[in-house]
Structure formats: structure tokens, C-alpha cells
């Protein structure tokens, strides 16, 4: 099986879906000749032309709103938001329109769009090129929110997102783009949206995460193994709707749960995950449900010591896992 990077998986999924279905097209800022500021759409303009790889004016609400209209007509638009931080001007179109199109029309219309957005920090991006914005979109039924952590999951989930009949927000951790590499099968496959994945089997503690921090947890788990503790690691992959069964099963398995995300702790995804566990299997727990996230500050600062302070890393994650294991 070939080994590709996280961003190559994005590009491959886009390319193969555009080859498969003429209705699929990409729109966004600098996605054309430039191939995207992260090069996620590299080569697509050359292969599919400027109509299907469309550089739009600098206007996120229009990018999403136009995608909604095109999808209603019957296309399969994939909108790129250059940085997740800049999705804010499009929030009205996403929450009021895309999420509610099917429901408000009693199923007469629907909104099969994908909105791709690179998120996350640790790239000297400062306050506005580092944010984790996923929590904002995980309380509105009608939407689906996906945040994969490996090239294999990116490829399989982005294809499913493009084929989905409902709007999907697809968050790509920008630090994973080139850092994370992995094997993908040669033969075509998809991964169902809404299913979490056990990335490591263990018995002593359960770690639930997604994105870059999932990798920190896997690294920390190796170190923790040397201390004689085995960690069970669940990758949420889909953040909304959550895979309740998988979450509860993983929590039950060890009775000690640590939820980890880069986003700040309060109001982050970890809250809902914790609440599900506290509601479904409280009496099977042997420790308080722990959450590890970024500090509760408005966003990640630019200055290296501050960015380092904000970002999680394998050491911080290891410390939290060890503490829970020893509880």
C-alpha cells in the first residue's frame, strides 16, 4: 500500500471524486492557478479547468451561499475556506441555510455541499490562523462535522462527504498536512461518516481525541506502556453527529476517560463527549472524566513561548494520561 501525506489524501480524494462525477466542483480563494495556499487543490486547475476549480472573489458568505444554490440546482460543490478562522463571515449561510434547507422544505430540497477548512495551530499562525472552530458547528442538527487524523481517514471520509446528501464541514488539521503520513489501499474505498475508530487497544485508560492531538496521544501511549499502563485510544473522526455507541463502549472498557483536543477546554467538543459518558455509563467509571484542552484564552498567540504554552504536545498529553492511569 502506498504511503501518502495527509494533504495528498485531500488532493487525491478531490481529484478522484471530480473524475468520478462531473457535478463535483471546487470553489474558493486561490484554489485555481495557485492550487490553494496549502496546495490542497494542486493540479486540479490543470486537469479540470477554471470552471470546476473556481477562484472566487474574497467573500466567504458568498462562497458558501453560492455553493448552497449550486447544490440545490443539482451540483456537488466543495467550498474551500482558506483558514477555518475565516469561516465566521459564512456562519449565517452555514447554520441558517445549509443546515436547515432540508428540514425547512420538509425534504423537498437538500444541501449536498462540502465545506473544507484547514484548522488548528502550532504553525506560527497567531490568533487568526490557528483556531479550532469545530465546536461552533457541533450543536446544529442538519450539519455533519468531520475531522480526520490520518491520510487513510481523510481519503475515505472526504469521499463520503462529497457523496453525502447533506452538508458536511470537513476540518483538516493544517499541522497534519505534511507531518502525518500513512498507508492507503490502492483500491477505492470510503469510510462512513458518523463512525469513530479505535486507533489503539488498551485496558487501563481510555483516551478520546481527534486531529493532531490524537497523534500526541498515540505517542504518549507508547511512553505510558513503558510505565506498565496500556491506553485505549478512540479517534472520534466525526464530531457531529457523535458516535455515541463507540464513545460509551470505549469508556466502559477501562472506566477511566481522558478527552483531549487542541481547542480550548471550556465549551469544546470534550464537553459533549463527557456528558454522554456521564449520562450513559457513570457507574462504570473508576475516575472522574478528565478533559485536556487548550487554555481558555481567545486564541493562540504568535510569540513562540506563548504558542508553545497554548499548544498541547506529547509531553503534556503523557503527563495527563499518566496521572489518570495512576489515579
Amino acid at each position, binding site marked *: 500500500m502506498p504511503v501518502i501525506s495527509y494533504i495528498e489524501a485531500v488532493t487525491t480524494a478531490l481529484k478522484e471524486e471530480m473524475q468520478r462525477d462531473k457535478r463535483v*466542483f471546487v470553489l474558493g480563494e486561490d484554489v485555481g492557478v495557485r492550487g490553494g495556499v496549502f496546495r490542497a487543490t494542486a493540479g486540479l486547475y490543470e486537469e479540470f479547468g477554471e*470552471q*470546476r476549480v473556481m477562484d*472566487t*472573489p474574497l*467573500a466567504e*458568505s*458568498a462562497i*458558501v*451561499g*453560492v*455553493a*448552497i*444554490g*449550486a*447544490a*440545490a*440546482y*443539482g*451540483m456537488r*460543490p466543495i467550498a474551500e475556506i482558506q483558514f477555518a478562522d475565516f469561516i465566521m*463571515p459564512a456562519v*449565517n*449561510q452555514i447554520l*441558517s*441555510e445549509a443546515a*436547515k*434547507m*432540508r*428540514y*425547512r*422544505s*420538509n*425534504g*423537498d*430540497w*437538500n444541501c449536498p455541499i462540502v465545506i473544507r477548512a484547514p484548522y488548528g495551530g502550532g504553525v506560527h499562525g497567531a490568533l487568526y490562523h490557528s483556531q479550532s472552530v469545530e465546536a461552533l458547528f457541533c450543536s446544529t*442538527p*442538519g450539519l*455533519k462535522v468531520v475531522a480526520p487524523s490520518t491520510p487513510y481517514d481523510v481519503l475515505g471520509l472526504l469521499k463520503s462527504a462529497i457523496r*453525502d*446528501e*447533506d452538508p458536511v464541514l470537513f476540518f483538516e488539521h493544517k499541522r497534519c498536512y505534511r507531518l502525518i503520513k500513512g498507508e492507503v489501499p490502492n483500491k477505492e474505498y470510503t469510510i462512513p461518516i458518523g463512525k469513530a475508530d479505535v486507533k489503539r487497544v488498551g485496558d487501563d485508560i481510555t483516551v478520546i481525541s481527534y486531529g493532531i492531538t490524537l497523534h500526541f496521544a498515540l505517542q504518549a501511549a507508547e511512553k505510558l506502556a513503558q510505565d506498565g499502563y496500556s491506553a485505549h485510544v478512540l479517534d472520534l473522526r466525526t464530531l457531529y453527529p457523535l458516535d455515541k455507541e463507540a464513545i460509551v463502549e470505549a469508556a466502559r472498557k477501562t472506566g477511566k476517560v481522558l478527552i483531549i483536543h487542541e481547542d480550548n477546554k471550556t465549551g469544546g467538543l470534550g464537553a459533549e463527549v463527557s456528558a454522554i459518558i456521564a449520562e450513559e455509563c457513570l457507574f462504570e467509571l473508576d475516575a472522574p472524566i478528565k478533559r485536556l484542552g487548550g487554555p481558555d484564552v481567545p486564541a493562540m498567540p504568535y510569540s513562540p513561548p506563548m504558542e508553545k504554552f497554548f499548544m498541547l504536545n506529547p509531553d503534556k498529553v503523557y503527563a495527563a494520561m499518566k496521572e489518570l492511569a495512576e489515579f
Partner: protein
Amino acid sequence: MVENKHQALGLTDKQVLDMYYYMALARKVDERMWLLNRAGKIPFVISCQGQEGAQVGAAFAFDKTKDWLCPYYRDMGVVATFGMTARDLMLSAFAKAEDPNSGGRQMPGHFGGKKYRILSGSSPVTTQVPHAVGMALAGKMEGKDSVVYVSFGDGSSNQGDFHEGANFAGVHKLPVIFFCENNKYAISVPLSKQVACGSIADRAIGYGFPGISVDGNDPLEVYRVVKEAIERARKGAGPTLIEAVTYRLVPHSSDDDDRSYRSREEVEQARKKDSLVLFSAYLKEVGILDEDSEKSLFEQIQEEVDEATEYAEHAPYPTPESTQTKVYEEKESL
């Protein structure tokens, strides 16, 4: 004897009488809704009254078989012209399961229906503008020559989505008719506190396409400018912004009281220019309508409205449990 405007526009006598019918139908359905609201039978009404001429004049210029509509909440005249019946409208007013717009999920005025080529609309104003642009883009990608109608009020032309949508359409020369129904108010806020430009049409030049202001109380004049704009759009010459200057004859909605922000005299003055009054006079002057034929037209409409009200009032509500359906694609139901 006045000159026959409609023939010059290529409209038959039958067609202009149909225009009058749709204008009157919208007015009468709307009036009935107010009665039903005051009688406590329906919770909410938002009106087309005063804007029927602009709406029907514009809608008639489109091709029901291939064009698309992204109307706003006052466009009863537009959706009626595209086929929405008094019964459909009443089913929505009563929030009944059969309502083709939303199955009773949305307030009246939130039009939608694939069979009528109307994209479902919401309440946050102006969000439909980028949608119309997206539909036009998709049509262009498919090589179709369909044109998209999108409407909004004067106040709503100040939303960012108007700007972003119009600019996108201008850059890509998309077949969209931006139809601004300028009724001089945004609820209580007068035009002078909404915009500082002479006409909403002045905004078009900033997007590189034509902007035209037209008397919204003259359906034939509206038809003419919209028709020309549609022809340009069909042959790839891009969008047009059209401002139809009109007036809202009733309060903003059944929850509003307009006496706090405008004088009765002002409203009475506007009633004299009511498109229904003026168009009726025109049709009589050119000799294709008389008291008798008008009377029977209104009797027919009256019957339609009665039947629709009767039907809708007794139609079943959606079930409580159906609240949980149509959130996502329901695989089994495929």
C-alpha cells in the same frame, strides 16, 4: 382612448387579463389571511399588499418551464404566477401537513417548492441572494439558458449577502435578475435611514452590470424592463439589478402597528397609486375589461379563496412526531 401599451410589449389581451387575475388573487388571499389572523385562526400574516403589480409584472417576464425563483416573503404575486395556488398558500397559512412550501414547518411567506421551480427560503433576509447566484452558476455550467429571479426589500439591500452575491454574479456574468422591491420602509425604518443613494439601482455599477429603477405600480413597465434584462441574461450578457419603486399598504406584518411610524395621509396617498386600481383602469381604458367582467373575475377569485380557506382549515396538521423527520437524508425512505 389611451394607447395600448401591452400590445406594443407583445402581450395579448388574455395575458394582461391573466396578470390582473394573479394580482387580484394575491391581494384577495392576503386580505383573507388578515381576517383569519384577526379572527384568531392563523397566528401570522406578512403581506404583498401594494406590491402585486411589481411582482406579477416581473414574474410574467420569466419562463415557468426553465427559469428559477428565489423569492422573498412578500412575493405572493410572484409565486402565484408560477403556479402556487390559493389552496397551497392557505395550507401554509394554517401550517398544515399538505403545505407544499414546508409541510407547515415555516411561517407563511417562506415560499418553496421544486415543482414550481421555487427554492425554499428562510427568514434571515438576503441569504437567498447568493443562492440565486449559485443556481445561475450551476445552470451556466450545464450550458442551460435558464435565468434566476431573486427578490429582496430595500432595507435588505444593505446586508452583506446582497453585496457579496451581486459581486459574484457580476464577475462571472451570471443570468440573475436582482429584483429589489423598494416599498420605502424596513418595518418602521424609512428609506432615508436605510440608504443614502438616490436609487437602489445605483448599486449596480459597483458590480459592473446595469441597474434600472422602474415604477413598481405599473406592471407593464416592470414587465418591459425585466423582459429586457432576462433577454440579456439568456444570451450571456450577465445580471441586472432592477429596483421596483412601490409601497407597502398595510403594516409590516400582523405583529406590527404602522401608526407609530407613518401618517394615515401618507398611506392614503399611496392607495391612490395602488397597482390594482391603476391596472384595472388601464384594462378598462383599452377596452378589454368592464364592470361586469371585473365583477365576475372577483367572484371567481372569491370562490377560490373560500374553497382554499375551507380546505386548509380542515386539513390535518403534521403529526407531533414528524418534528423529528427530514433532518438528514432518511436512507430507508429512499
